[in-house]
Structures are given as structure tokens and as C-alpha cells.
């Protein structure tokens, strides 16, 4: 589903953010992406979202070789990916319902279907009662769940999360990761960038470790479970 083949990314100015990174995430697989800050996690996610282009190598997402796609195809690539951000990126002047419905509006879905699907997504993250609330009146954990509802409402085959637990306490972080695992159980390919090593270890999933722009380790789920806590 996500396939990196010898991918390098060098920013103008000469900084090598990624060097010769190769891995494959199969459809329905779940993995964590970890490494200290500046290791290249964000760059890797940005390449998948086609916010950047690889300097060398190939990035294949959902069967499409991003290096060969023109920039105007980027939105359609992004519509196949649900993205979750550390700072939620909710629009504060829109209600929870309107925030979650954005991807469907963009796709031009019929309004009755939008209603149904938004409520289903909110139900899935346990926030159905908050559909008329404003994002700023919600707690950090709730806002993050609204972000997740927005990411899954379009039923994309891929879910990406960039430090989703950055501002949450351990209890909420664990709940969130369980939610990802649950979504993964429904067939969604999930890639979560996080530096919360202990939590990652306890999840028993595959872990990709980046260090200085290189893929330093690729630990299979079985290994984590076998050698874990």
C-alpha cells in the first residue's frame, strides 16, 4: 500500500532529510514510525502526502508512483489518505460536524450521505454528542478524536498520523493508539509517527526506526511481541 524504494530527499540548501530509505507497508498492515526529532519522520510523511517530492528513488502509494504524477494529481492522492496531526488542524470557526464533513464536501458527496457518514465517523470516535460543539470548547483528547473522525470519514485506505499523542497524557494516548489498532482491524493501512517508545513497544506492532535520515531498523510485529515488556 505504501512502498518506498531507495528514497532520498535532499532539501534545497543541501540538508539530506532522508537517505536511501526502503520499506513496504502492505495493505491492511499497521506500523509505527519512530526516531528522534529531525530523523526524517515528518519528511517521510510529507512524501507520502505528496507535499514534497523525492529527490531520488520511488514512492508508491496506493498503487500510484508519486514521482510520475503531476502536481495537480496531489489532491486526489491526499483524498486517499486520512491524515492526523499533532495540533489537530481543526477549523475553529466551524462546528465539529462541519470540520468532519470537509473531506466529503470536497468529494462532492450528497448532503444526506454526508450527514450519515459524519455521524458514523463521530460515533466511531465516541463524539456523536459533540457534533454541534465548537472545536475550542473540547478537550485536547476530544479535539484529536475529531481530527481522527475527519481522517476516516472519507473511508480512505490509508491512515497517517504525525505525533498524534504529542499533547496528550499517557492514558489518552493509549486510548488513541487502541483506536488506531481498531481501525486497522477494519482493514485500513495505518502508519503512525511517534517518539513515545514505551507506548509503541506495548502496542505489539511493526516499528520502523529512522536515524539521521536512514532507516536504522525495521522490527517486525512478532519480534516486538516476543521481546517486548
Amino acid at each position, binding site marked *: 500500500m505504501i512502498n518506498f524504494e531507495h528514497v532520498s530527499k535532499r532539501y534545497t540548501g543541501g540538508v539530506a532529510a532522508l537517505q536511501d530509505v526502503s520499506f513496504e507497508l502492505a495493505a491492511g498492515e499497521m506500523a509505527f514510525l519512530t526516531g528522534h526529532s529531525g530523523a526524517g519522520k515528518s519528511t517521510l510523511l510529507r512524501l507520502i502526502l505528496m507535499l514534497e517530492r523525492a529527490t531520488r528513488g520511488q514512492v508508491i502509494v496506493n498503487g500510484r508512483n508519486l514521482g510520475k504524477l503531476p502536481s495537480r494529481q496531489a*489532491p*486526489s492522492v*491526499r483524498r486517499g489518505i486520512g491524515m492526523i496531526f499533532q495540533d489537530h488542524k481543526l477549523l475553529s470557526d466551524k462546528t465539529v460536524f462541519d470540520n468532519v464533513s470537509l473531506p466529503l464536501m*470536497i468529494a462532492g458527496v450528497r448532503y444526506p450521505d454526508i450527514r450519515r457518514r459524519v455521524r458514523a465517523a463521530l460515533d466511531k470516535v465516541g463524539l456523536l454528542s459533540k457534533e454541534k460543539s465548537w472545536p475550542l470548547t473540547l478537550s485536547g483528547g476530544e479535539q484529536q478524536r475529531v481530527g481522527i473522525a475527519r481522517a476516516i470519514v*472519507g473511508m480512505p485506505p490509508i491512515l497517517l498520523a504525525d505525533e498524534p499523542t504529542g499533547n496528550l497524557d499517557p492514558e489518552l494516548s493509549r486510548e488513541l493508539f487502541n483506536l488506531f489498532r481498531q481501525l486497522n482491524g477494519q482493514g485500513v493501512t495505518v502508519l503512525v509517527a511517534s517518539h513515545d517508545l514505551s507506548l509503541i513497544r506495548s502496542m505489539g506492532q511493526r516499528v520502523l526506526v529512522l536515524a539521521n535520515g536512514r532507516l536504522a531498523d525495521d522490527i517486525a510485529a512478532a519480534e516486538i511481541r516476543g521481546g517486548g515488556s
Partner: protein
Amino acid sequence: MSTGGLRRKARAWGRRQLYSFFSSLGTLLSHRLGTLLTVLVLGVAMVLPLGLYVTVKNLRALDLQQQDWGTISVYMQPEVGAEQVRSLADRIERERGASSTAVSPEQGMEQFRQASGFGEALSLFEESPLPWVLEVTPARPPGDDLESEVSRLSEWLGQQEGVDLVQADFKWLQRLAGLLALGDAVVTVLGVLFSLAVVVVVANTIRLDVASRAEEIQVLQFVGAGNGFIRQPFLYSGFWYGLLGALLALLVLGACLFYLSLPLARLLDAYGNTFTISGLDGREVLLTLLSGAALGLLGAWLAVQRYVRHFRLD
């Protein structure tokens, strides 16, 4: 692609338009004061050329009512009688190809009495003190150079026996025509300049709007919105600004005309004229609204084109 797929795409496109349409309206309504100020500026910018246009249009209508385009009044000497006037009229017809109407002293007196209102006072005259007058209408020369034809004819008339004074109303009419042409040109120049102002004002407003919604644009891009979808609400905003500005300009113009119509009617009445001031007709109103909307759209397009293209995700 199958027709079903195409139809589905078209429907999705329509829904997106509808969404942008309402979202732009919502934005305008949620920033009422800002919207109002922008529309006010646009309205004032548009009312100036419109007002001048209406003025020139009315002057032209006034001018069309003037029947004696290029007529020459020939005042005879006091001792000249009907016989001599008739023979002069014949010669004018024969030698110069121009038609003429003779006004006897009595007729002249009667016209003057009606027009001036000095009825009582004038009846003190036993005999009309006015001379015979010939109103000569020159033939239209082939080159349509009325001016030189009139001056040639005036000169010839002045040399005829018994003629006291030749007066051509022509000069000031010519000047009026010149002024009207100038007015047209000024309308055009003002129109272009103020259209430019409208475009710039809308472009700047939209540019600020885009900048203040940078966060929203970024989120939209993240969740897969194309440039078209992001651009659309701003284009609609520009459209609304232009349309509302034009509407305001029309309302202000209407109010001005209403305010001016009464004193003007009184003034014209005093001149025995029954001219009524005319505003814009339906076609012109429609054209004004459409141009306003089009200019707003253009301004928004320029702003968004510049901005969204250079918009970079951080």
C-alpha cells in the same frame, strides 16, 4: 469513462459549487462590517462614472428635442414688407436649395406673447414693432459639412437687400455637440479608471481574506482539496462584492436623480420645456450589475491566482 461516471462527476462538481457558493455567502455575512465597507467603496467608485453617463445621456436627449438644428434666423429691416420677404424666400429656395419659413411681425408678436408672458404689456403696442423674420433651414450638403454650408449661406444672406441681421444658432449647438462628445470621452475614461479601481479594491480585499484564512486553506489542502475548490469561495466573494457594489451604485444614482428631478423640472418649466429626466433603462441596469459582478470576479481571480499559486504548505 461511462456516461454514468460522467454524470456522477458532474453532480459532485455541482454540489461542490453549491458548497462554495454558500460558504462564500456565509463568510460575507459573518464579516458584515468589513463587507459593508468594501461594498460602500465599490458603490461610490461605480456611481461616479454612472452619474456622468446619465448626465450626458440626458443632455443628449435635451439636444434631440431641439428641432432647429442649424437653422438660420434672418431678421429683415423694419421697412421691408411681405412682398419683398416672399421674393427673398423664393430666391433662397431657387438659388441655395434651402427651405425657409417666414414669420410676420404679427406672428412673431404672438409667439413672443405666449412665450414671455408679457401679454398685457404687449397689447399696448398698436402695431407690432418686430420685423419680418425668415427661418432658413439649409439643405444638408453631400459631405454633411453643415458648419461650412451654414457659414456660406449666412454670408450670402447677409449680402441680400433688406436683410438687417443674420443669426445662426448653429455655433452653440455645434459647441454643445462638442461638449457631449467630450462628455462621452470623459465617461469612457472615468469608466475605465473606476473599473480598474473596482478590480483593485476587490483584489486587495480578497487578498487579505485569503491571507487571513491561510490556516483554513492549509487544512483544505491537507484533506485533499484541489486548487479549484480552494479558489471557488473567493471567486464567489468577488462576484458578490462586485454585484452588491453595482446594486448600491444604482440605488445611490436613483436617489440622486430623485433628489434632482424636482428642482430640475421646476427650472425647465420656467423655460417652457416639458423635458423629464431619465435614469437608466432595464438593459443598462442589467449591464451595470453584470459589469460590476464581472469586475469583482476579475479582481478576485487576480488575487487568488497570485496567492493560491504561491501558497506553500509549511
